[in-house]
Every structure is written in C-alpha cells, then in structure tokens.
C-alpha cells in the first residue's frame, strides 16, 4: 500500500514533467509536421540556464527567466534554421533538428564541461512535505507537481479562450486549413515553436535539479519523448497527456518492483522453470526498454496511437 501510493505520486510527478516536454513536441509535430529532434535539447538548455542563472541571481529569478530565454532560442531556431531547411522538405527539417541536437550537446560541454553540474534544489524548497507511513514525500516533488499542473491549466486556458489558441486548436486537426483561412501561418509556427521550447525549458528548470543536469540528459529523455508522441497519437494533446502519465507511472513502478518474469508468470498461475536470461530478468531491468516495447505494441495493435485523430 505504502509502496503503491508513493510510486503513484512519483509516477504522476514524472509523468507530468514528461507531458511538459511532450506537449510542445506534439503541438509542433501536429501543426508543422516537424518531428523536432532537438526538443529535448531545449529541456537540457533550460536546466543549464537555470543552473547558471541561479548561481548568479538565485533560484527564483532563474525559475522565471530561464524558460522565456529558452523560448527565444526556440524562436531563433525556427526563424533562421528550420524555415530555411523547410525549403528542402521534411527530411531536411528532420536532419536539421537532428544536427542541432548533436550540436547542442557539444555546445553545453563547451561551456559547462562534460561533468554533472551542481544544480540543486533551493533551500527554501528542501524538506519533507508529508510522511506516508514511513516514506517521506519531499517538498520539491510537490512543487514540481504544482508547477506542472499550473502550467498545464494556464496552457489549456490559453488554448480554449484566446484567438491564437483557437487557431492552434483548429490547426491541430486540419493543418491545411490554416492558410486557407488567411492566418499568418509563419508567425503562428514561430509562436508555437517558441512556446513548445519554453515549456521544455521549464521542464528542464524544475527537472534538472530533481534529477541530474549533465550533457547526457537530453539524449536520455529524447527518445522517450518520441515514444509518448507515437503512443499518444498524432494531433492529440490529450493522447500525449495520457501517454505521458502512463509511461511515467509504469516506469516508476517497474523500477520499484524487484520481481522477475518468473514471479509475474506465477502470479498468473504459470509455472516457468526456465533459467534462460530472459525469464530471470527483473522488472527493474526491463524498465528502460518498457517505453519502446509499449511503442511497438501500440504500432502493432493500434497504429493511430491511443487517441490519434489522424494516422
């Protein structure tokens, strides 16, 4: 019970953070048809900027400054890189963001080095929020949840009640209609790209100190972000939300469960006696590839994704 509750809380926290990353990617992918390989790089950039700014100015200024700065970086990338690559087609766009993600890692190493940087949770957010049975739940996790939920509520409100939001929502299901309706498509693209980058940056700001801030952090989360988009389904923010939570919770539980596949089979009344490497694997060991297995399963049984409107 204790394990279940705590894992659930941790999983939801992680899932919400994932969604902050994936939400922007889904928006960009659905509207512009661009799979932004460098999206996780914005997450990394957010963490590093927050680290640097909090060293200079303290955590709170960094918390409010870093995401907009990442957003500006996103806008510049869209305006001066992607738009040019777009002339050469989707493959060029994809390769451009691929090269950019590579360059981002090198750039971060150039400035901050290859080692883990000391980006910490601020003292004001340290400590225990509450204790469940014997496990304590840190204040900072509560803060992460609060920020994620708050940001998502704000985003949902923007999408539901502003003119630009409505256009973006319409464009999600029918991207070809946008131009026909006479909207300034390039401007909206830049806006969405910058917004998505800023969201990823915010995820980096609050995730970087909860986990680690290092040059490998983008590569660690990048592929999972794509899995979320595939599993959730193209063009569906809700799908991405559900997939983020699903993957967040599943992965957290699997890391905590030290059962092997034999144990799981016994649970279902099957007696496996094999001593092969496969059956001796524990769920903990399987956790890193779980998202990919899920993706392959989705592709086989439901190629549109959980809630995809289009295939």
């Amino acid at each position, binding site marked *: 019970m204790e394990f279940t509750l705590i894992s659930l809380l941790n999983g939801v926290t992680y899932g919400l953070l994932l969604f902050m990353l994936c939400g922007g990617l889904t928006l960009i992918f659905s509207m512009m048809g661009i799979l932004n390989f460098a999206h996780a790089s914005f997450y990394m950039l957010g963490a590093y900027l927050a680290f640097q700014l909090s060293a200079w100015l303290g955590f709170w200024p960094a918390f409010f400054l870093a995401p907009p700065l990442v957003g500006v970086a996103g806008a510049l990338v869209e305006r001066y890189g992607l738009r040019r690559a777009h002339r050469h087609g989707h493959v*060029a766009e994809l*390769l451009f963001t691929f090269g950019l993600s590579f360059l981002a890692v090198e750039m971060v190493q*150039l400035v901050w080095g290859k080692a883990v940087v000391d980006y910490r949770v601020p003292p004001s957010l340290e400590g225990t929020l509450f204790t469940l049975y014997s496990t304590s739940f840190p204040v900072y996790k509560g803060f992460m949840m609060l920020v994620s939920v708050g940001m998502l509520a704000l985003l949902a409100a923007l999408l539901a009640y502003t003119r630009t939001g409505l256009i973006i929502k319409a464009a999600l299901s029918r991207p070809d209609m946008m131009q026909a309706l006479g909207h300034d498509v390039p401007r909206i693209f830049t806006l969405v790209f910058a917004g998505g980058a800023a969201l990823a940056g915010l995820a980096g700001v609050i995730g970087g100190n909860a986990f680690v801030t290092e040059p490998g952090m983008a590569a660690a989360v990048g592929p999972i972000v794509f899995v979320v988009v595939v599993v959730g389904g193209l063009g569906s923010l809700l799908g991405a939300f559900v997939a983020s939570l699903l993957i967040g919770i599943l992965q957290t539980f699997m890391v905590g469960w030290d059962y092997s596949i034999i144990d799981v089979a016994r649970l279902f009344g099957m007696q496996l006696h094999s001593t092969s490497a496969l059956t001796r694997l524990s769920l903990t060991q399987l956790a890193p590839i779980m998202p990919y297995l899920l993706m*392959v399963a989705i592709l086989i049984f439901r190629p549109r994704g959980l809630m995809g409107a289009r295939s």
Partner: protein
Amino acid sequence: MSFVLSLLSRIGIMTIFALSYNMLLGQTGLLSFGHAVYFGLGSFATLHLLNALVAHGLPVSITLLPLFGGLAGLAFGLLFGFFTTRRAGTTFAMISLGIGEMVASSSLMFPAFFGGEGGITGNRVTGRGLFGIDYGTPLQMYCLIAAWAALCLLLTYGLTQTPLGRLANAVRDNPERVEFIGYSPHSIRYRMVALAGFFAGIAGGLSALQYEIVTAEALSDHLSGLVILMAFVGGTGTFYGPLIGAALVTVLQVAVASVTPAWPFYFGLVFLLIVLYAPGGIAGLLVQHKAVWQAGLLRRLLPAYLVAALPGAAVLLGTVAVVEMAYARGPERGDARLHLLFLPLDARSAVSWVLAAAAIAAGILLLKIASKQVAERWESVHAALAEAPR
C-alpha cells in the same frame, strides 16, 4: 604503415555501412535513425559464431564469416522491418529511433550475449589459414575488407538496376501512385530494409573481425548518427555519394581529432551547413558543377566564388577561434593560450574574443553581399544551360 592500413580498413567497413544506409535514405526515401542496430547485431553474431566454432574445434573460414554477420542483419531486418516499414516519412524515422534505443538498452540487460560494459572479444587468428593466409597481419585483414567492400559495392549497385531497386525509387518519389501500378509500398520498403540490414550486418561482421572486440557502442545512436553524417555529407542523391562521405568523414575524424578536441562540434556545424545550404551533399555539388563545366561555363562562376571565399575564410577563422577559446577556457582544459595558424590567442583576454567576433560579424555581412553575386552568376549560367541544346 599500420596506421594507414587501419585507416583504410575502417574506410572500407564504413563504406559498406554507408552504402547500406543509402539504400534506405537515398533510394527508398526512408530516414532511419537506428541503422547501427543491424551493424551491431551483425558484429555480435559474427564474433559469437567465431568463438563457438573455435570452442567446438570446428573449422572456421574467416573469409566467409562476415556473411554470417550479413545473415544476422538480414534476419533482424526482416523482424524489425515488418513493424517499421508500415509507415514512411517522419513516423518511420521515429520508430527506427525507438527500435534503435530498444536494442541499445537491451544490450545491458543481456550480458551473456552482449558482454555487458566490456563487450565480447574473440581472436580471428585460428591457425587454419588456407595458402598461409591466417589474417594474422593487418595487411591480410585489410585485403579481406577491401574484397568484401568491392563485392558489396557491386551488389548494392546491381540492386539499383533491378526491378526492386527502381520500384524503391518510385516509392521514394510517390508511394501513393505505386499502389495504383499494382505494388505495395510496404512490401517494397520492407524488402529494402531487410536487404540494407544484410549489408549493414556484413559491415558489422568485418568490424568484429578487424577489432576482435564488439561493445554496445556498435549498436549505439552514435554510430547511427555517424552513418547519417557520412551518407548525407557525401550526398544521398547519387550512388557514389556515400562512398565519398564514408572516406572523407573517416579521414577527417582522425585528422581533426588529432588537432582539436572540439572536432565533434565542427562535425555538427558542417552537417548543419550542408543540410541548410547544400542538401545534395558533396556529390550533389559535383553533379551541379559537372554540367556547368561540361558546358564550359565554369569561368563565369569562379570569380564570384573567389570573392565569396575571402569573407568565408574570415567567418571560418573567427568561428574556429571562438570554439577553441571556449574549449581552452572550459573546465577540461588548463591552458588558455593557444595558437591558431599564426595568430596567438588568449582565451582570458577580451581582445581575442572581440577580434574573433568582429571577424565573424564582418565575414557574415560581406558573405551576404558576395552570395548575391554568386546567385546572379548561377542564374546566368542556368539561363545559358537552358538555351544550350540538350
């Protein structure tokens, strides 16, 4: 000598790998981000077979062993390709990445097969050489690689001249129409992925024999990225483009890495520039200029190129200065002073930074003007080419 041989051997292996990759990107229009999977699995399979044969005292033919790597690549191509090729475009790219990550992360889960962090090792000298060829020397190994590379080159070229090869081009151009000439785009893509897996597996098998060790690095996204770089820099629009790319990138990797630790940064930058400004790669540029040269119009372009070269050099020099100074200042390096060609730079002095930045800014400004010139010249050349009888 052995340095040259080992470089040539690596070029040979990478040539096969890049050719295999271009069967997908260039010929079928499939952008894969996980091609190292087939290379790596071919590597592991080859070395395991070698070790098993030796352990059981069975006869081993090192000459033919890479074929087994190819078969392993083919088998996994058949397995994974079935899921990945249902869709093309961005979705294919994403799925190939997912499969690549899945295989790469499983490598740590099955240490019995993948050997964990240390990888697995073997010994290619089994003492049963025919005609005294036991592949004990780098030269003999190089000859084996060269022979396989030549064979793969012939086979992959031959493939472009078959019905499947041409239909792959058709799928790349217009998958919808392919269905209305009686073909399934999925089946065509599936076959191409499987065959590309075969050639990647051969490259992996040769790599296993060459280095006598295979680690998870052979499955990694690094290697997948490297082969994209090779194919794209060389040019995916032509058959021989990836050959140029494989040779050039491999040589540069060694050459630039020996001069500066910042080489991955430069590689990334060059890659981005090619994506943005010359998406046909080096081969694409060659093809463009070949037509101009044959028409005897190259003289019209050269002056504009020369004018553009000067600010180009300034931007290059400035960028290199900034990158090198940043590295020198960075946490990994102690000495902030360095020499760039004849220029002494000091990463701690503001003057050096300002000078570098000024070179970049002025260079970019002038380059913009010069590029207009180049574009005008190109237009005149195009006009002249269009008038000339075909």
